[in-house]
């Protein structure tokens, strides 16, 4: 029993509840509370890694926690294995820096922003660590409801429209997942992941197909894959840039974790193979990927381009995951890591660059490279990584994805990905060239609030540069992350290990 698992969820939750409580009494205490609990949460993650380092290296790492001391399947269990550890580290790492970025970008006068940010942190950890299917549904709805006000944060017309669409699509997706939970309880009488996984093969193929399809539709609506992607570009672009980085970079990856956990460990991938659903998923994901690239080419607004690029990369990740070979799963998880770093870096740099422009369109970006050459060079480096140029980490992950497709004989998919990369080259070059044009006559720069306070500008540029450098360094030393990812892949391919350590650990 490891208390650190429940503390990973309770620390941001308690902070989010304490912020309005403390705010009534004193203002500085609230600022100190935000900084303090960020550090506590991050060090909890580091503590788990350091104290279990031996077991991580041996690939026998797991932790469980029985809530309320009820044994499964009666109660709810929290569990962490290599896959959850991988995603939990990604979440803590990126949220630590996004909180610091938000302190510079948004400032401190909006207290409720930090309440919602910490609730999102707690919800994401709740999803990654849970071992119970209805608990997963509750925390997915929590993630939806706490990220929607942040989409509408700017309180202009665009943001409100985006938030309404986001809420409608997200709620309907949650309803489909709830129907899946209903069917699982009706047929199996239990709600625990390990118990479902153990008894799932006693059902007939017909029932398994129905349950799998409801979960599939629900999670695809929430992720934004092809027939249900109409909300994503507006929602990820109508919010302030720190929230765009959070939505496009981190929250989408948590949905990828739900997809992997449900369809490999709980339902079992052989169900998808027997019913032919994995071919449907592959086709839909590839269509989604190519549509994302094409729509990004047509766009004139930089944040909407980046949002469409998220749809494209997400389609690529799902497509390569359905191949179910060791190389394919490795490539998929590596691209999860790579895309998170690159997308967060692009959005944080864009947030700073857009302070100098009157609008978000391409023509407004003229001459923006000369305002701060360092941040713009970082933007260029990371854009190169998204296209797939070495030595950034985007090159390594795309290389492995292409290799996974080619070894399985799917050369059409490889061709689609290469075409997508060419499109990405075109639409990133558009913005970079406009950035380098000299402004002859232009409107005076509207200095936003962020640039008048010195420390805020420093914080924002430092975080943007830090992520760009992280993309570069992790690209050069990418072999280092292979160890943990291979451990995660072993967990995915081995559902009996998952059943054993929860039900008897």
């Amino acid at each position, binding site marked *: 029993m490891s208390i650190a698992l429940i503390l990973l969820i309770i620390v941001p939750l308690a902070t989010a509840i304490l912020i309005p409580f403390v705010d009534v009494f004193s203002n500085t205490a609230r600022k100190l509370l935000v900084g303090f609990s960020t550090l506590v949460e991050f060090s909890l993650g580091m503590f788990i890694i350091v104290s279990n380092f031996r077991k991580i290296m041996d690939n026998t790492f797991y932790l469980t926690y029985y809530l309320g001391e009820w044994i499964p399947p009666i109660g709810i269990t929290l569990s962490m294995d290599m896959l959850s550890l991988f995603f939990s580290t990604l979440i803590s790492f990126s949220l630590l820096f996004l909180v610091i970025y938000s302190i510079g970008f948004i400032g401190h006068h909006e207290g409720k922003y930090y309440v919602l940010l910490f609730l999102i942190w707690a919800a994401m950890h709740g999803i990654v660590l849970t071992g119970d299917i209805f608990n997963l549904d509750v925390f997915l709805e929590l993630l939806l409801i706490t990220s929607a006000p942040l989409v509408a944060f700017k309180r202009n017309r665009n943001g409100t429209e985006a938030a309404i669409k986001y809420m409608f699509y997200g*709620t309907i997706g949650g309803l489909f997942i709830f129907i899946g939970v209903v069917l699982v309880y*009706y047929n199996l009488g239990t709600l625990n992941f390990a118990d479902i996984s153990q008894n799932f093969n006693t059902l007939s193929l017909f029932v398994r197909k129905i349950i799998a399809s409801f979960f599939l539709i629900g999670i695809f609506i929430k992720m934004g894959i092809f027939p249900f992607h109409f909300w994503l570009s507006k929602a990820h672009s109508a919010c302030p840039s720190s929230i765009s980085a959070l939505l496009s970079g981190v929250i989408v990856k948590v949905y990828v974790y739900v997809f992997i956990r449900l369809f490999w460990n709980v339902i079992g991938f052989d169900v998808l193979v027997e019913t032919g659903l994995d071919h449907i998923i592959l086709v839909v994901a590839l269509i989604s990927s190519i549509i994302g690239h094409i729509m990004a080419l047509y766009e004139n607004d930089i944040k909407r381009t980046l949002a469409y690029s998220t749809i494209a990369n997400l389609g690529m990740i799902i497509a390569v995951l359905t191949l179910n070979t060791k190389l394919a799963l490795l490539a998929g998880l590596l691209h999860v890591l790579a895309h998170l770093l690159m997308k967060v870096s692009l959005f944080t740099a864009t947030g700073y660059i857009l302070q100098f422009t009157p609008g978000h369109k391409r023509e407004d970006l003229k001459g923006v490279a000369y305002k701060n050459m360092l941040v713009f060079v970082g933007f260029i480096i990371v854009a190169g990584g998204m296209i797939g140029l070495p030595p950034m980490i985007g090159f390594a992950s795309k290389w492995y994805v292409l290799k996974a497709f080619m070894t399985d004989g799917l050369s059409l998919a490889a061709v689609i990905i290469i075409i997508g990369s060419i499109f990405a080259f075109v639409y990133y070059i558009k913005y970079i060239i406009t950035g380098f044009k000299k402004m002859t006559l232009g409107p005076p720069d509207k200095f936003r609030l962020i640039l008048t306070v010195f420390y805020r500008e420093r914080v924002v540029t430092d975080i943007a540069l830090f992520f760009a450098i992280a993309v570069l360094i992790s690209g050069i030393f990418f072999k280092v992350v292979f160890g943990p990812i291979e451990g995660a892949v072993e967990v995915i391919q081995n559902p009996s290990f998952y059943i054993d350590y929860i039900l008897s650990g």
Partner: protein
Amino acid sequence: MINNLVFVIVFLLGFYAILVKKNLIKMVIGLNIMEGAIFYWFISITDRGGMIPIVNGTQVASQMNDPVPQALILTGIVIGASTSAFLLTLIIELNKFTNSTNPDQIGGMIED
């Protein structure tokens, strides 16, 4: 048999309201109708004899209705209520900008 029929009809009625109606508040009502249909279906298919799951001395343990779906549905009702409250807030905000509640001004549900 009759449970499934009622569920499918009410669920699709709610879905029809979301797709077709020209008023955002009616779309929220459609969402609530869909949720209500799922809750009704869940209770009616796990029915086991019809005695309420509260012990008061005259119960037979195998004939008590299943308490687990009731707990799950209570949670689901609260989630649905918070979602509707927040959606209505967003509609109030939108109304301040455009003075109408027509979903065509936000491009409908299937456009960008």
